[in-house]
């Protein structure tokens, strides 16, 4: 890291410098968060890639305890738990990102729309609807939608999308209420840009940063919901490697082979904890509590 080798371009060096500057701005909490998340991402990419074992395939005698050949042991069908845990990491993190990204866009768009409109009736209806949606008991809402759409990955994602957008809309509305009279918005109006263009190109980018801060804590909720519903058998189903589903399978062997739940549960929790630390650290930085 310290000596730049000759092969590295100026752009690369600049980028590294930028990264290092960012890193210095972080506090201890968020640094730990970054380290934990980077570690999990690295392992989830490299382990399934480097291991010769297939996450779905039989490799050796079932229910072996952790050993040098099988670091995490083998599961009840004789599959390599190590590969399965990190294949699951890929799936869970990807699903959670997918779960967060749709509500953030929809919610921010709807919220900005509601924030910039000057229609009284729309405002009243809006208030009732969003308050009602955020007051809804979360897991029950998700289960209801899953019952409707289907107890599989698609149903789970749709349920998350439908139930999670309201909070973003709330944030976006509050922010855009303050922005709709801002000078740069007025300037755009004078230039004759269309309402939609002003909304998307001028207001939404300014609202987004606040939504992103909330998205981190939402990510934790969503990855836990994905695991939880899969644990209940209503989301990702076996044999697909997924942390919650693996916990449900391993639960039957709790008495004798506890490592079957310890490894998937540990990495699921670690992911959530990493994001939580990052979120908490960033929040403290933005509040100016450190230094």
């Amino acid at each position, binding site marked *: 890291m310290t000596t730049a080798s000759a092969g590295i371009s100026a752009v690369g060096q600049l980028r590294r410098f930028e990264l290092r500057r960012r890193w210095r701005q972080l506090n201890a909490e968020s640094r730990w968060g970054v380290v934990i998340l980077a570690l999990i991402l690295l392992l989830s990419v490299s382990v399934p890639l480097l291991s010769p074992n297939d996450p779905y395939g039989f490799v050796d005698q079932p229910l072996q305890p952790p050993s040098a050949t099988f670091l995490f042991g083998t599961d009840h069908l004789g599959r390599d738990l190590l590969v399965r845990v990190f294949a699951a990491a890929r799936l869970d993190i990807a699903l959670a990102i997918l779960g967060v990204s749709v509500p953030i866009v929809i919610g921010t768009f709807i919220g900005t729309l509601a924030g910039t409109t000057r229609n009284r009736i729309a405002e009243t209806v809006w208030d009732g609807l969003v308050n009602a949606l955020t007051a809804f008991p979360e*897991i029950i809402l998700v289960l209801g939608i*899953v019952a409707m759409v289907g107890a599989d990955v698609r149903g789970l994602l749709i349920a998350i999308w439908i139930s999670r957008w309201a909070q973003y809309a709330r944030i976006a509305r509050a922010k855009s209420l303050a922005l709709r009279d801002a000078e740069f918005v007025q300037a755009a109006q004078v230039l004759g840009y269309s309402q939609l263009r002003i909304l998307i190109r001028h207001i939404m980018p300014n609202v987004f940063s606040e939504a992103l801060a909330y998205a981190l804590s939402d990510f934790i909720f969503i990855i836990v919901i994905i695991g939880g519903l899969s644990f209940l058998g*209503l989301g990702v189903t076996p044999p697909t490697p997924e942390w919650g589903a693996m916990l449900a399978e391993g639960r039957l062997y709790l008495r004798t082979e506890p490592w079957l739940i310890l490894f998937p549960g540990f990495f699921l929790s670690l992911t959530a904890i990493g994001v939580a630390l990052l979120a908490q650290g960033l929040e403290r930085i933005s509040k100016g509590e450190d230094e």
Partner: protein
Amino acid sequence: MRRLAQAFFVAFLLMVFAFLLIRLIPGDPAMILLGDQATEEDVIAYRKLLGIDGSIPSQFGRYVANLVRGDFGVSIRSREPVLSIVQKRLPISLWLTVTTIFMTVLLALPLGVAAALYRRTWFGHAFQIGASVLVATPVFFSGLLLILLFAVQINFAPIAGYQAGFPANLYYLWLPALTINFVLVPVLARILQSSIVETAAEEFVEAAVIRGTQGWRFYWRYLLRPSLAPTIAALGYFAATVVSYAVIIEIIFNLPGIGMTLVDAVRNRDYPLVQGIVFLSGLLVVGLTFMADLVNGWLDPRAKIR
């Protein structure tokens, strides 16, 4: 008044949502349940059972009228009225909720106070880190860990199951309640901690110190009592949260409560039962939240204006 209107509005939306639950299923629910080999008569009879015959407005009218009469339809599986199933299963979930909240108070009060008083020591830092770790750990993992520890290793609790009747049921409920509290206690203790820290900065506390007030009287009258309002308000909302958590907890600990019934109903595509439970447990949560709002407004008049 505004809160009451809002609670009613949410309850109404809940009703509409429960109504739409069956109707928005892609395809014909009767056909899904009966399969391809169903006869025409069977399909018609099933539609009637589900209340999806006739036009949508007339369906809605009948649905609302039935709800008012306390008729939530019958379970497709057991052909038992939904309401009687709920009446049978709900007490277990309520016991779980009460035990949990009781335990939350018992654990969070001393922790919150200690975390506030020793904020700048190693204990305060350990509390901060421990709290973030516990809150982020999913209950279905911490629950399994606790079973592993208490039921498998030291035989302190049953692995799962339930037996009705107080106090025998506490033997089955304490571990599930503890699991939920792994999430609730850190949150509540943090709320208490920050409000005590805020209170401690007030002038009347300083005045009490100068007057030489000491011991229990000082801690209770000048620190704890003025800081309790947000904690009590949060407890009310927690009761609503527990209803949500109960869904997963009941499955892990094999408690035949309302959450387990809901999950089974979703698995079996028992639409009337899902509909009934979503509506009733949603109503319960809305009621609890409303009460928490009331208590909150009463304790802290500033909250009313918002």
